[in-house]
């Protein structure tokens, strides 16, 4: 990644110098090696980094950056490029205001997984080939990179970008996919309704309604969210009963159905490690089955199966005789 980072930095400097872009949205070095904050940079690119801890998807920041003067350089990992396309399809980003570089990704690291291995008091973290080397106040430790990746990286959509004005890629691409992304969905489908209810109650009862999942989600781009309406009685902070915790997530999952690219940000940011992506993946799987395979964000201008109409559309539920399978 060091080499990729050097190339990105060099290319960004050229784009600043020739006036193609006036700013760049990237990741900034924080207080520790694993601490990376999305940030907007000027030509000096002070504190800019790109490494295994740059998991945050930057595409949603372009909604606001589209509204300011000048063109923004954005760095997109392969999975981020799907979100980027989806936002373009929904006219939330002004394409002319953006210059996108698709950058290489060999899987992003999950600090929580590292901590779950019993690593405490981290002083420094270094990536050495396929290992992560940790120095802590309680001694040092090496862990395999492949053991501590973000969940989404084990079901990577592939290391090719679906958007970008140019690309900075490694010669040898690392495939991190090891699991079928529907594996857990299938497990949930196989449960009885009661078991499934118990599973989700167990997970969702931890929710603190912090809204991080919603606010980070590139598909949640409403100017004013229904849950921010104080007149509704169920606005953002009112975690008043278990019904609400459930309904918030179910309503949100329905609203992003067909638009969710499965970028995995919701589960990454959840302070309670609730596997929110499983709700979305269930919808994706149903859509695939009912309307044919569909990947949101694969192309700009796609007509989403749930927002498009065709005479032979499946009508699940009510009228199975019209082709609904269930």
């Amino acid at each position: 990644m060091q080499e990729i980072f050097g190339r990105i930095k060099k290319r960004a400097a050229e784009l600043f110098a020739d006036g193609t872009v006036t700013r760049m949205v990237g990741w900034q070095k924080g207080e520790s090696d694993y601490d990376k904050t999305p940030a907007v940079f000027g030509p000096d690119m002070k504190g800019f980094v790109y490494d295994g801890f740059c998991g945050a998807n930057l595409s949603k920041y372009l909604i606001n950056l589209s509204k300011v003067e000048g063109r923004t350089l954005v760095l997109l990992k392969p999975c981020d490029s799907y979100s980027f396309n989806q936002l373009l399809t929904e006219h939330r980003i002004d394409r002319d205001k953006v210059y996108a570089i698709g950058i290489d990704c060999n899987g992003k690291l999950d600090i929580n997984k590292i901590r779950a291995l019993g690593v405490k008091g981290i002083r420094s973290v270094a990536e050495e080939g396929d290992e992560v080397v940790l120095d802590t106040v309680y001694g040092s430790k090496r862990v395999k990179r492949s053991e501590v990746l973000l969940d989404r990286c084990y079901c990577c959509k592939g290391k090719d970008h679906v958007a970008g004005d140019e690309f900075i890629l490694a010669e040898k691409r690392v495939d991190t996919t090891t699991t079928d992304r529907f594996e857990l969905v299938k497990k949930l489908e196989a449960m009885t309704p009661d078991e499934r209810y118990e599973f989700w109650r167990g997970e969702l009862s931890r929710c603190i309604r912090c809204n991080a999942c919603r606010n980070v989600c590139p598909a949640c781009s409403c100017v004013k969210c229904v849950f921010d309406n104080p007149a509704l009685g169920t606005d953002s902070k009112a975690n008043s009963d278990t019904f609400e915790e459930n309904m918030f997530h179910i309503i949100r999952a329905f609203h992003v159905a067909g638009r969710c690219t499965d970028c995995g940000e919701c589960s990454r940011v959840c302070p309670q490690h609730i596997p929110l992506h499983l709700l979305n993946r269930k919808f994706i799987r149903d859509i695939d089955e009912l309307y044919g395979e569909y990947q949101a964000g694969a192309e700009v201008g796609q007509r989403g199966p749930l927002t498009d109409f065709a005479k032979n559309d499946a009508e699940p539920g009510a009228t199975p005789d019209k082709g609904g399978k269930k």
Partner: protein
Amino acid sequence: MMYKIRTERLPELFALAAADKALYLPVEQGGQVEFRPWSEGAAVRFDALNTVRSAKDLFFPQTENLVAFRTEGKKISIIENADTGAPFGLMGVRSCDAKSFEILDRVFLAEPADTYYKARRENGTVVTLACHEPEETCFCAALGIDAAESADGDAASWIRDGWFYLKPVTAKGEASVETVRPLLTECDGADDAAVEAEKKDIGAVIGQLPFSKLDLSRFRGENMLEIFNDPRWKELSAACLGCGTCTYVCPTCQCYDIKDFKTGDGIQRFRTWDSCMYSDFTKMSAGQPRLTQVERFRQRFMHKLVYYPMNNDGLYSCVGCGRCLRKCPISMNIVKVAKTLGGEQNDEQ
């Protein structure tokens, strides 16, 4: 007097303590550790440092009913349905969380006292636990809090070499220890030495943590306007999502909203945590006074580092627990704010 019990016998102690009142402990569920009521077989995690939500939940819960109204024709009846609970015990509280109670007390117990909070404070007995292995995100030391021995709480505890040491501090603590007394052994000089050694070890680790020497001295009343008007708030808040994570996991965040839930034939009035990061925070008929995320973000840190200490003898409204460092989705937090705006003395840290 200090007492001890083998750590493998702790479940017996929990069972006895929980016999006549609820006992809250750090319990793991779904991989996350939270303060939960003890029950047989609960996965108590005294080794996990900080729970996701802090211990403030027990005194100032995320949502609580205040009162209900019911209408029948033209008649409105008032139904008292606040639940301020019964006596309870709380064990495994770290020094940082224990200190947060003082910060909350100064808000909720100031006259006129918040009766809901006050009742829970009186109901609760707090047993603190020294931090065997502090983490890099901990900076209690920078706020004058001792991870090795809490100055707050009704009893203090330590774990070392398979022993759990328990020392009552207040009369309430004495009374609680008395209820489990049959299981405890009185400590002798060797035990005192073991606890002293534990404290020393903790102190040594704290000394090595990266933010232990964070210098907050610039954050004081006379610099209020200068800090408030600092242009760097803009870059600090640029990536902030405006979620409520930092405020909801924080032991010292104390803002709340009172809302009415329509029940069909009446209203349930409840209190819920609020977050200054939200768009409807302190919204009035004229709108939200802080229109942009920069202003909302600034409010959180100005409150913790400047306004609160101005009104409370210089006490910061942060206990250095590090939860916001670990949980912010974009990795922005009070340490970064303090280092950026706290003056040059923090540059080398």
